[in-house]
């Protein structure tokens, strides 16, 4: 029984704090860095950074990425990857604008239905047919981008959403000082937290990513979980696309390029293992905000071009993954 007692003893004591910070970077690391960056930003740039207006812009900018990254978190936790979300964002936006000629309902349902179907096909090919997620969603990336351009007549036609449509007003509304998309993103995020942490589907998502074979042998519905995460990812991206279109009153087939990588970066910076099985949505939220705050800060420095944002994000990503792999190695030794 010594092993058991040791196991219990090790969890208590002063090491608990160290563990929280280093052993579980997914729990604490990114929020701490985010807080430091926020403080540093406020001290350096004062009012121009810490103003309500600027923070509101950061929130709006983050909201689309948060929607996408929430779905991406489920996908990555299940041990997969979804490369199609950038293209889906564009397709959803184009379809929103295209459907707006038939009213708000069509403008919302058309893109969501199409995204849902594409997500379902992704999921079935991955979960049931057993094709690698990378390949399937790469194909979906090409497919969705192509479809977006086709609907927009090779980009020559920009479908405009009528200004008097309820959707337009919704997209540009502000409640309690924050733009509507921010509230939508927060609602979706909160729902995601509940689903991930408090439902059997959520727990199974972790288990499938942790060890698919074990999950199978434990009798979990592995295939169903793997299908559903891609549907979820596509639907959340679809919502983001509708909101982007509503905000800009138009659907552009060129938007969202590289967004899939940005979302993956946010999830991984948030401490989710790229191999799946461990991570939190809270971390993803912190990751999204961190990326967007850094972007904003670099914009504050007039002399730096926006491309330095990618330099910094890339560096962050490498550091986080390096820490992750070291921790994983320590755990498995």
């Amino acid at each position, binding site marked *: 029984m010594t092993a058991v007692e040791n196991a219990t003893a090790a969890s208590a004591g002063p090491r608990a704090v160290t563990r929280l910070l280093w052993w579980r970077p997914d729990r604490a690391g990114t929020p701490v860095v985010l807080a430091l960056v926020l403080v540093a930003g406020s001290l350096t740039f004062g009012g121009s950074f810490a103003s309500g207006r600027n923070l509101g812009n950061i929130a709006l900018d983050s909201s689309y990425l948060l929607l996408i990254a929430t779905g991406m978190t489920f996908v990555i936790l299940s041990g997969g990857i979804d490369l199609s979300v950038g293209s889906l964002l564009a397709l959803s936006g184009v379809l929103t604008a295209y459907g707006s000629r038939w009213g708000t309902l069509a403008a919302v349902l058309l893109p969501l239905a199409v995204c849902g179907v594409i997500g379902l096909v992704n999921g079935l090919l991955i979960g049931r047919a057993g094709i690698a997620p990378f390949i399937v969603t790469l194909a979906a990336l090409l497919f969705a981008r192509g479809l977006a351009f086709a609907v927009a007549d090779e980009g020559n036609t920009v479908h405009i959403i009528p200004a008097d449509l309820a959707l337009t007003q919704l997209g540009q509304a502000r409640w309690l000082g924050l733009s509507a998309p921010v509230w939508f993103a927060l609602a979706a995020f909160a729902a995601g937290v509940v689903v991930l942490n408090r439902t059997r589907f959520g727990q199974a998502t972790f288990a499938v990513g942790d060890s698919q*074979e074990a999950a199978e042998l*434990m009798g979990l519905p592995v295939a169903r979980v793997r299908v559903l995460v891609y549907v979820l990812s596509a639907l959340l991206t679809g919502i983001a696309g509708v909101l982007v279109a509503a905000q800009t009153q138009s659907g552009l087939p060129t938007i969202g390029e590289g967004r899939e990588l940005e979302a993956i970066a946010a999830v991984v910076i948030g401490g989710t293992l790229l191999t799946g099985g461990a991570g939190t949505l809270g971390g993803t939220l912190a990751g999204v905000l961190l990326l967007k705050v850094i972007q904003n800060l670099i914009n504050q420095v007039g002399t730096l071009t926006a491309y330095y944002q990618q330099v910094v994000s890339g560096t962050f990503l490498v550091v986080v993954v390096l820490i992750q792999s070291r921790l994983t190695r320590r755990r498995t030794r």
Partner: protein
Amino acid sequence: MTTPAIDVRSVSKHFAGVRALTGVCLDLRPGEVHALVGENGAGKSTLIKLVTGVYRPDGGEVRYLGEPVAFAHPRDAQAAGISTIYQEVNLVPMRSVAGNLYLGREPTNRLGLIDFRRMRRDARTILAGYGITVDVRRRLGELGLGVQQMIAVARALSTDARVVVMDEPTSSLEPREVDLLLDVVALLRRRQVAVLYVTHKLDEVFRICDRVTVLRDGRLVHTGPVAGTTRLRLVATMLGRDTDQIRRHGTTTFSDPAVSDQRGRTTGIPEATGTPVLRADGLTRRPVLDGVSLDVHAGEVVGLAGLLGSGRTETAKAVFGADRLDAGAISVDGARARRWNPAAAIRGGIGMVPEDRKAEGIIGDLSVRDNIVLAALPRLTTAGFVSRRRQDEIVDTFVRRLRVKVSSPGQRVRELSGGNQQKVLLARMLCLSPRVLILDEPTRGIDVGAKAEIQSLISELAALGLGVLLISSELEEVVEGAGRVLVLRDGAVVGMLRGDDVSEDHIMRVIAQASGDGRPPRAPAAPRGGL
């Protein structure tokens, strides 16, 4: 008599024309622990997969609680009350202990959301029932393997299992953890659960099991109460040797001091004298190797014998430097090596042909030429360029000497037969002109003709002064090929035979004796005499 929990009625199963099981019967009664033993390829795994719904039989039927069943999926078998504990812990390491216990059937509240508080409380209660006190919120992977295995058992049982299938559950556990697990098995028996206990550790069979079934080559060769058999008879049955012949020596020779005397004598004065080319001292890698020592002289073939899981391959890998060791030292020509890894081994003149030809040996898409010269490339390279002419010389020589049947040196290795692939691997090591060759199962899976050729090749090489460490699960091969045989059990050397004492009988008796109660299971089994 009560209805058997599981009644397997003459099932057969074949894969791609190969018969894995032929007419095997097995009945498993409530409240019994039934051992299933057999060597590699005997069909143990296939049988338990038939019972647990992974496979369906081609012939015969499986009855569960008296009713014929055909589970489509392991999930269905589990739902019906047949749970399986696998050799490797099959839980999700990054989830909590409680989460692992309840995955897929978490308690929920009125809103359909998981009630974690109740889940943790129930998990604590369940684990306490097995004497495990552990923080159920901890990640499973942070706990010892023994505790993990216990949690797997607890999960299996909390589904109200009537039948528990355990597939070598102790293979990765420390002795102390094994005790813990066996206590739980005893608890299961008291609760009238039927346990099918697959193992290759004979002392566990005698410690915990009521009945034992032996499979060999996909057939049932023995089933009966454990009390009515002996270790020797079990070993003989598993290996398919003549029990009568051994019985004539009398099973009483187990306790006969003559046997140990004999062994003491035989391990007295080494035949090969002088400094051994290769010497290993106290190789330890927990939990698979426990202080293995051996030496190989020039021109000597040393055999390693032992049952599956006794540490044969682990010894080979340790000697070659392929696995990290907890303790132990390697000496070449009497000089102790400081850093030991495969590259150092090769520089020191040690070559190894691994057990798993496909995974660790040949590179199927490369040509015969490339495969042979692979390890020798550094020696054939001048200023970064590889000399094609010298490559061809080497390849020609070995293809001729080893009689490798190839259409041309450029032929892809994948297209060769198993025997010829093995020869290519031998050639790869031989062109390094090694002084000791470690051969792990050199004739596994190759046809009879090629087998004889390789065996005589080994003798020829030894006659030329090469030292050979020969590992084989076929006793016959070890007995015929080796001048000296080390017998392994549970990762330790439990006996050494040389000269006339090397016989299949004798090896089996050493294996069986080593699992006797009289000896502590992990006795250091000090290498005697020549070591």
